[in-house]
């Protein structure tokens, strides 16, 4: 595409989330507008993990937050559990919050340093009147054990006493406290060591199975999402490039940008050089994005058509969608 389109939507599925033509713009004043997310549509089927992948500045985090109405998107619709969120009043929206939770990138700063872990987890339960103190205490222990933490050891400690990986476990336990339907994970492992990354990714998988969750997993690293996702959406400059099952994204890459992302993943083998030459420079500004396909300025296959005409998502194989005028051969 970086283009638009709705070919990848699945109206027949058991959808818990449907996002249509979502646009998020930030007004900088003096006529300058940042077009962070431009007309993105997506849907989420119960039990799946949708990975949203792209570079810094492609709008993936903004998209995740806009789905949660943090803040409300500039235009477009977000339908969650058959309710339209964008037109909801504050009170009704608040009632929806327990069902949609978020896990953030920096595990240490997303926990209150002054609260012991038991209070971090008790807070949402008290706010939503989920039982008396005894029941809340039991729930806290259950959550901590589910996150592979020993309640007896961690309950009374504060976030600064933990490593990044442990803090992320606590964040996950907190996100689960109110039995959510959907969790949006915004780069949950990119601040962690590789050895700890694997532990957290496994934990997220376990939690998903155990609590029947549906996840949106935002990351810049295709290798990280490969193991955990059921569908991958590649974004570039606020638009969609490619939507496909994870194996297709890697083995049958159709978009030139996805190819560059695949080629950038460091491979622990001294004889296989990573191909940085695939893409040079930085993405253009989102204040004045290129016309037509937004990736054309860095694309090896760009033609005049790409400048004049925005590519639309189209199905190139079963469940595999690409927004490109000149896609790669499968």
């Amino acid at each position, binding site marked *: 595409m970086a283009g638009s389109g709705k070919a990848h939507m699945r109206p027949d599925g058991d959808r818990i989330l449907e996002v249509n033509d979502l646009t998020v713009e930030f007004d900088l004043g003096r006529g300058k507008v940042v077009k962070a997310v431009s007309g993105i549509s997506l849907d989420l089927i119960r039990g799946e993990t949708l990975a949203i992948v792209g*570079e*810094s*500045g492609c709008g993936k985090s903004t998209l995740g937050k806009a789905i949660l109405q943090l803040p409300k998107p500039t235009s477009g619709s977000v339908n969650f559990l058959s309710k339209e969120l964008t037109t909801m009043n504050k009170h009704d929206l608040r009632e929806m919050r327990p069902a949609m939770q978020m896990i953030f990138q920096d595990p240490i700063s997303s926990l209150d340093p002054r609260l012991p872990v038991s209070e971090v987890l008790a807070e949402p339960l008290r706010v939503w009147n989920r039982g008396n103190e005894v029941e809340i205490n039991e729930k806290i222990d259950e959550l901590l054990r589910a996150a592979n933490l020993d309640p007896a050891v961690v309950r009374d400690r504060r976030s600064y006493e933990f*490593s*990044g990986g442990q803090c992320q476990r606590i964040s996950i336990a907190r996100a689960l406290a109110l039995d959510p339907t959907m969790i949006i994970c915004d780069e949950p492992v990119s601040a962690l*060591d*590789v*050895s*700890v*990354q*694997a*532990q957290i*990714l*496994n934990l997220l*998988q376990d939690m998903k199975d155990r609590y029947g969750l549906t996840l949106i997993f935002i990351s*810049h*690293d*295709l*290798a*990280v999402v*490969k*193991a*955990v*996702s*059921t569908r991958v959406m590649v974004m570039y400059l606020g638009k969609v490039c490619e939507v496909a*099952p*994870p*194996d297709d994204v*890697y083995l049958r890459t159709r978009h030139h940008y996805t190819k*560059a*992302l*695949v*080629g*950038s*993943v*460091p*491979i*622990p*083998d*001294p*004889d*296989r*050089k*990573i*191909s*940085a*030459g695939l*893409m*040079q*420079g*930085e993405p253009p500004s989102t204040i004045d994005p290129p016309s037509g396909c937004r990736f054309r300025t860095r694309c090896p296959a760009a033609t005049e058509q790409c400048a004049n005409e925005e590519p639309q998502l189209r199905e190139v194989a079963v469940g595999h969608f690409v927004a490109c005028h000149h896609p790669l051969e499968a």
Partner: protein
Amino acid sequence: MSNVLEVTGLSITFATPRGNLRAVNDATITLEQGESIGVVGESGSGKTVLSRAIMGLLPGTATRTGSIKYMGKEISELPEKELRELWGTGMAMIFQDPMTTLNPVRRIGAQLTESLTVRLKLDKKEAHKQAIELLRRVRIADPEGMMRKFPYQLSGGMRQRIMIAIAVSCKPELLFADEPTTALDVTVQAQVLELLTELRKEFNMAMILVTHDLGVVAGHTDKIAVMYAGDVVEMAPTRELFKNMKMPYTEALLKSIPRLETPTGTRLPVIEGRLPDPTKNEPGCPFANRCPYVADKCRAEKPPLKDTGTGHLYRCWFPIGGEK
């Protein structure tokens, strides 16, 4: 070839309220001119402390034993005033976080020409000319415009390029890169690593690349030292290490890297457990509690660093593939 760096028996301990914390134990590393070494380990393995100790950047709470020789000269006892003469021109460092290592209120041009005028005693005009050349060298598209910018106007990848330009501005013999790409996207990471390798070869610099990711060092170093709980547990030429690894820890570290080849839905192999408490001096191999091949001997006695005779060193009683 001459050795740029010879570190012998370097140990670092920190005085903490909980007792002495051993950060680095008896590390020995040599680096030839133009050679690059990857220092790999988890958070808390001592890899950053090791590189800072060589630079002479340890805080006052640290005690150090062992010798550090730079170009054949002992530098571990030098007063800071003399050490300063080496910084920039002899040894330079690139830090992990490009967001906080640049001065937010000074223009890029001023930060870039500073070392040129102070260290190389260039006049303003000449320094400006060289700064532009450096920016071009690190592939900044509009060097003149860049000189007038402030750090907040730049992306993370751009800032890291500026840091690299500053670090190599005085053509140091030895470049430290401490997790230089950890804060960056994968696409930018690939570009920055390639740039570092290119500059290293061009200027014939030795480089110490500190990282937690074996994938990052694989294509960009001549040899690798794996650290665990303050010990160098395995050291070998890069290709030899990947082809013939001896340490169960190195193997576990390699297996835990998420790969594109991993089939969807598989569980990633993890290293269970945690690093041992660095304030306690327990007997045995520090990795014993997490090692899949652990035996009684491992818990009783700490293995020495063994040399296979081919420059491959490891610290294990029961190495993978047996003793050679």
